[in-house]
């Protein structure tokens, strides 16, 4: 049981009346990774998380966490999970330390072990000094850090974070991402977001959802190689607008070019195949008579993958409509 994926969903479907929030999701999350769940608003990320945590029931299909079927009223499932909601709510009358103690006790921690875990967690999320203050007086960032704390205090096998950086300032965001990186050693982390840069920084694997369906999933590097074609950046010398316009028009018409963008005098060119692109691109520059001060091949980003996959689906849907 411990060798299999920590999360497995099979045909997981959730409908709210006529709206299909999640449509036959088949997904596996291996143990020991930081897994990014990506997608635009309404893609089905939060629905997936609500089904995994037992807050909602599937309309069809099933989900398992560490071999335990997910659903409401399943303490065996929740024993394996630490969860941070995208808008975490707490008891305002409670003190920060008391919340962590409550969660620790619910997970079966007692005595010195509980005290040590709570103290360590408070230090880890930077709330040691505010531990005896009422949560009602915490700032938004402090609440978010407390939310992380209650999710990790019992050292769960699986940590599920729904949009965890949404209300953090840049410093808090950096600290959280560093913490997620550290947690990789002890937990599997499933992390939903639409901040692609954060995913590139900490995730090993990603799944992209759109319109409730899985568009793709796999190791981050493999997705970058598979879906993001190389992008070349051409920096022409100033004072040759006619030649640059001719170059852009020629590239636009070439079948080996995916997209051409002229922005601030710099031309960015996506090509289908790096080998052809490298050769043909320079030939096109020479043909257009453009003198360059810079030419480089840029590393593709997750944003390129995301926009290509999600954008392509949008175009298809638009055409179908």
């Amino acid at each position: 049981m411990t060798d299999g994926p920590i999360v497995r969903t099979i045909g997981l479907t959730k409908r709210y009346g006529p709206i299909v929030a999640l449509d036959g999701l088949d997904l596996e999350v291996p143990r020991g990774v930081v897994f990014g769940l990506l997608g635009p608003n309404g893609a089905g990320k939060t629905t997936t998380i609500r089904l995994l945590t037992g807050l909602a029931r599937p309309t069809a299909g099933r989900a398992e966490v560490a071999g335990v079927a997910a659903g409401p009223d399943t303490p065996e499932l929740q024993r394996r999970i630490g969860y941070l909601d995208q808008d975490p709510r707490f008891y305002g009358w409670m003190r920060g330390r008391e919340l962590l103690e409550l969660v620790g006790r619910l997970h079966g921690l007692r005595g010195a072990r509980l005290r040590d875990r709570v103290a360590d967690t408070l230090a880890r999320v930077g709330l040691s000094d505010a531990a005896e203050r009422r949560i009602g007086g915490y700032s938004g960032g402090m609440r978010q850090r407390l939310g992380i704390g209650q999710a990790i205090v019992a050292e769960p096998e699986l940590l599920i974070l729904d949009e965890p950086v949404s209300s953090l300032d840049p410093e808090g965001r950096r600290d959280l991402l560093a913490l997620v990186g550290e947690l990789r050693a002890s937990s599997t982390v499933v992390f939903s977001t639409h901040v692609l840069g954060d995913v590139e920084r900490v995730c090993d694997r990603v799944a992209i959802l759109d319109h409730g369906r899985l568009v793709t999933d796999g190791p981050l590097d493999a997705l970058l190689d598979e879906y993001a074609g190389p992008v070349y950046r051409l920096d022409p010398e100033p004072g040759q607008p006619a030649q640059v316009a001719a170059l852009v028009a020629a590239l636009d018409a070439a079948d080996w070019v995916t997209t051409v963008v002229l922005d601030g005098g710099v031309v960015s060119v996506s090509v289908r195949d790096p080998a052809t692109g490298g050769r043909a691109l320079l030939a096109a520059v020479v043909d257009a008579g453009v003198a360059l001060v810079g030419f480089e091949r840029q590393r593709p980003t997750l944003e390129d993958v995301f926009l290509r996959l999600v954008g392509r689906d949008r175009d298809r849907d638009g055409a179908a409509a």
Partner: protein
Amino acid sequence: MSGLAGFGVLLRKELLEAVRTFRLPIVVGLFAVVGIGSPLLARFTPEIVEALAGDMGIPVPTPTVEAAIDQLLKNIAQFGGLTAILLAMGSVAAEKERGTAALLLTKPVGRAAFLGAKVAALGLVLLAAVAVATVGGWIYTAILFEAPSVGGFAGLGVLVWLSLFAYAVITFVASTLTRSALAAAGIGFVALVGLGIASAFPEVGRFLPPGLSGPARALALGGGAEVAVPVSAAVVLLVACLGVAWAAFRRQEL
């Protein structure tokens, strides 16, 4: 038994919440006022009426221990019933509305334990309040009239608590079924009024929570009372209500 996982921890949290939010001290304080004030009101009603009526000469019977107990039962039934509704109205609905139910129910907590801890805390808060009112009522009745039977007065306290707890649990079910504390309070209030009207018919009334006041009065006055039927009926009502709450809540999405 996994449905009851976390019951003890959650009950402790509920009781701490009752203290920290001043719910427990306020309710106990108000019940103390009712308990002490009822025999006082019964004892000094003739003087109050005389002072207000002036020369009109309205005849008022000489107050007795029966009048003190009637006053206590009437005040607790009215004030206590409303308090029970107010205590229970937000138990589950407000937690669903605020999102704190989701915080707890994504932890290793059975939904039966979540509901059970709330009901137990409700019962304990009402028990503390009724106990204070009963003790205060007995002391002032003893000072102003004559000492009633201790055992009989304790019996009055138990039956009063059972009837108030029934109103709290009816409201609790409504709080579980809806997402609005106000709607739950409305249902609880309708039940309070409806049961009060229905209990005017003796054949039906002895099976309803208001029907517990007759045996409570008889016990407090040191007489015997037939309590098996009204107590059993109240217990059946409580169990049925809790069953409905659990059946609805265990599959609810949050």
